[in-house]
């Protein structure tokens, strides 16, 4: 696209001011997305942001591309229809843990199952914010919220486990506090062909402040984060080098140099593994027993649903010829009523394909 104008970050900021609470993690994500967009080489009119309902879902109003703020939970279905109908578009879906995993859970897993080529940014703050503090499907059991004054009894979903379980071809995780890293992950998602889920651990400063502190805290993050790199051993920690080893079929944290453990014993990350088993192991690794894995869990190539639909249309057009109305109307058995007084009818054809 040589005629694509060079765009800058500010070309993607709409005239509407973001109205999230001061200190909200959403602002940082918006910033990162605005920074990434001009690097993709996609003209602005071909980019569409689709969202559901929730704090995160206000996002499209703040982007100067096309945008559709839809209804609670249904953004994935709307984005699917949009992408199928218009596969040239770069479709980005913005959703939260309640929107994507609770009311929209069905559409979430089915978008993944089809591998529709949309980029799905899941802002996970483990709380319902816009409705002012009720527990979400990712809130930990026991969470005290307005709707659970004695602690929630629900077990929580892992967005990663759910995505990998539905065989997501791309799943990555980032945090709102590290914008450069987030940008690099967004670029990876943009480059992926198929449903790309990016879970952003995002802080709700009002109703669930510090929910991801264990992972994001500057002082401890090198010990508590596992940065995934394809082909590299899963090693973390600055002062003490630790790693992930497989004990039977259970991952465990080991310290390098202790009990004769060397780098050779450590699991090597393979985001391209065709089976999702390794990515699923990663999805089960949670605080405080494990560091929080960040980065690309899985990125495998697979045909996208939108491509396949259009390929099928093309193949059948080649086989049957471009559809013409006259041919359509006269498919199946037809007959002619003649104007003569005899009113003799003639069966024209009995060779239609469409009975």
């Amino acid at each position, binding site marked *: 696209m040589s005629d694509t104008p060079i765009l800058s970050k500010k070309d993607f900021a709409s005239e509407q001011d973001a109205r999230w609470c001061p200190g909200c993690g959403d602002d940082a994500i918006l910033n990162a997305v605005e920074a990434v967009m001009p690097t993709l080489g996609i003209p602005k009119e071909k980019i569409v942001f689709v969202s559901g309902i929730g704090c995160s879902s206000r996002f499209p109003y703040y982007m100067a591309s096309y945008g559709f703020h839809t209804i609670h939970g249904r953004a994935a279905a709307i984005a699917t229809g949009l992408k199928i*109908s218009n596969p040239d578009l770069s479709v980005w879906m913005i959703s939260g843990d309640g929107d994507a995993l609770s009311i929209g859970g069905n559409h979430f897993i089915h978008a993944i199952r089809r591998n529709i080529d949309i980029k799905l940014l899941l802002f996970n703050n483990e709380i319902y914010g816009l409705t002012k503090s009720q527990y979400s499907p990712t809130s930990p059991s026991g969470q005290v919220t307005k709707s659970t004054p004695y602690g929630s009894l629900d077990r929580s979903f892992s967005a990663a486990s759910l995505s990998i379980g539905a065989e997501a071809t791309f799943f990555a995780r980032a945090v709102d506090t590290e914008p450069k890293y987030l940008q690099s992950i967004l670029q990876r998602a943009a480059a992926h062909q198929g449903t790309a889920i990016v879970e952003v651990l995002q802080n709700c400063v009002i109703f669930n402040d510090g929910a991801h502190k264990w992972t994001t805290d500057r002082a401890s993050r090198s010990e508590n984060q596992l940065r995934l790199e394809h082909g590299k051993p899963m090693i973390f920690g600055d002062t003490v080098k630790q790693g992930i080893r497989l004990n039977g079929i259970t991952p465990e944290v080991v310290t390098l140099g202790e009990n004769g453990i060397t780098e050779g014993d450590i699991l090597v990350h393979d985001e391209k593994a065709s089976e999702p088993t390794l990515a699923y192991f990663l999805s089960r690794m949670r605080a405080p027993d494990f560091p929080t894995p960040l980065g690309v869990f899985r990125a495998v190539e697979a045909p996208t649903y939108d491509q396949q639909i259009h390929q099928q249309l093309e193949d059948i057009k080649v086989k049957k010829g471009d559809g013409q109305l*006259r041919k359509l109307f006269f498919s199946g058995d037809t007959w002619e009523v003649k104007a003569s007084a005899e009113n003799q009818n003639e069966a024209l054809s009995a060779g239609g394909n469409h009975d």
Partner: protein
Amino acid sequence: MTTKDRIELDRVTIRFAGDSGDGMQLTGSQFTNTSAIVGNDLTTLPDFPAEIRSPVGILPGVSTGVSSFQVQIGEIDVYTPGDEPDVLVAMNPAALKVNLEVMPKGATLILDLSSFTIRNLDKAGYKSNPLTDGSLDAYHLIQAEITKLTLNALEQLDLEAPDKTRCKNFFALGMMYWMYNRPLELSTGWIERKFAHTPLLAEANKLALSAGYHYAQTADLMPSTFEVRPAQLEPGFYRSVSGNQALALGLITAAKQADLPLFLGTYPITPASDILHELSKYKEYGVISFQAEDEIAAVCAALGASYGGSLAITSTSGPGMSLKSEALSLAIKTELPLILIDVQRAGPSTGIPTKTEQSDLLQALYGRHGESPICVLACSRPTDCFDVALEAAQIAVQFMTPVIVLSDGYIANGTGSWKIPDPDQLKPIIVRRPTDPEAFKPYARDEATLGRSWAIPGMAGFEHRIGGLESQNETGNISYDPLNHELMSQLRADKIQRIAEFVPEQAVLGPESGKLLVISWGGTYGSVYSAVTQAQGEGLSVAHAHLRHLNPLPRNLGELITRYQQVLVPELNFGQLAKVLNIHYGTQVKTLNKLQGQPFKIREIRDGIDAALASLPLEALDV
């Protein structure tokens, strides 16, 4: 060969009945297609249970396992499948028992004698054999060992007995072809295509068909054969279509006329699934059919496709429409074109899913949150579905609004002879796109229609945001301004009302004023039309107005109603249109309601007309 009397009939009604696995729908539709092609006008009533293969011979009430297909063929306009069959083909005692109650005395019963075993009679609840106990004395009985004769005819074929037995429906069809002097070729051609990959089954069915034909010819079972002369149809090319097929054809045509890609987002539901099946065939026309994970995803995907510039459709039945209502309100709010087809069935809830009803009208008109007016159209007969699909698309695109199309199970599965239009004579559907990026405002409106212009992603310079939050007039920016909300609500309502200025005035069949106006809508068209013309033939002061446009109502309807002393509204519900008319026009219409999962008989409407006329004050009767 026996020479028979050939009796000419102007119309005849035949019902084929058997168990749900007996192939009665197929037999009936084969008879129908052949009759259409020899030139008869016709109307059909397929009537089948929800069970796919229910146990042999079980009666309704226990499990409605009997499947039937009724067709009326004639040489004069045939608007209904017939009140009472002249002939019943019953493949077993249960089919006989269930259907006998609608058979008038003197009718012909063609029975498969092989199935009248003690076991089957017992299953059907017969205490004694109706063939011998005199209970069928008032009927003309034709008994044939249909199953046994089919097995005999196929004796030489290397097939299992159950496969051979399954051909008995074609044996029965062969008998009917001889009786009504129809050619076999169209059905043999169909068999060859259907069983192209299983030549042995093709051979078996063809043998059974011709064996039945020749058996009827030689066995001297029938006193006479019948001739139903071709109808005086308008010259032109014809094909038979079901309502669901006609909708599919109409939608593909509309997309071509609008030069838009066609997108169907849907989820399987009886009796709407055939729209999906039909549209899935036509990929060479660029039709995208998307079977979503649920009803909500189906409408949402369609709305996404509409936002992306497709002519977007979602098809469903009543329960599915309930699930779609939130997304419909979003379509109303964002002013995007969308067609929702509701093929109504007997409800509420799962109800009787394979039976017809008109009970979703109020849901279509009012079943959403907020002030959310929507355009509602209804199909009247299978062939009308084509025209309604075109009009729905025209309105959706011109006014930038979702449109609900109401069909029903009776129209969807029924068939009619469709006069094939000349594609070159069809009107184009104009899509209004903005052209000047500088002047572009997402919610700026066309003065005549109040429709906004349709800028779609990919159009450079027109990037904009829409959504469910209230929009500022013209700019579309989020606005919580109270006066703006009222203004936008009013504009959305006015826009729908504007549609009435663009559609024809309501036509009336019969006197321009008089004692009684019968107002109907949807699938009751045929019975109401037939009853009204019958009454008119007897000199009664009755007129008929059949509504396609249910919202907005035709602009002359209020005035029209005042020209008659009384209005009668027959509906397959508890008076939903009647309520709407009473609210709109401050009138008190008479209602005639039926909620049995079956269409009106002509007789029932006629009785309603007579009762309505009789209820008028005497002085009025003297007018």
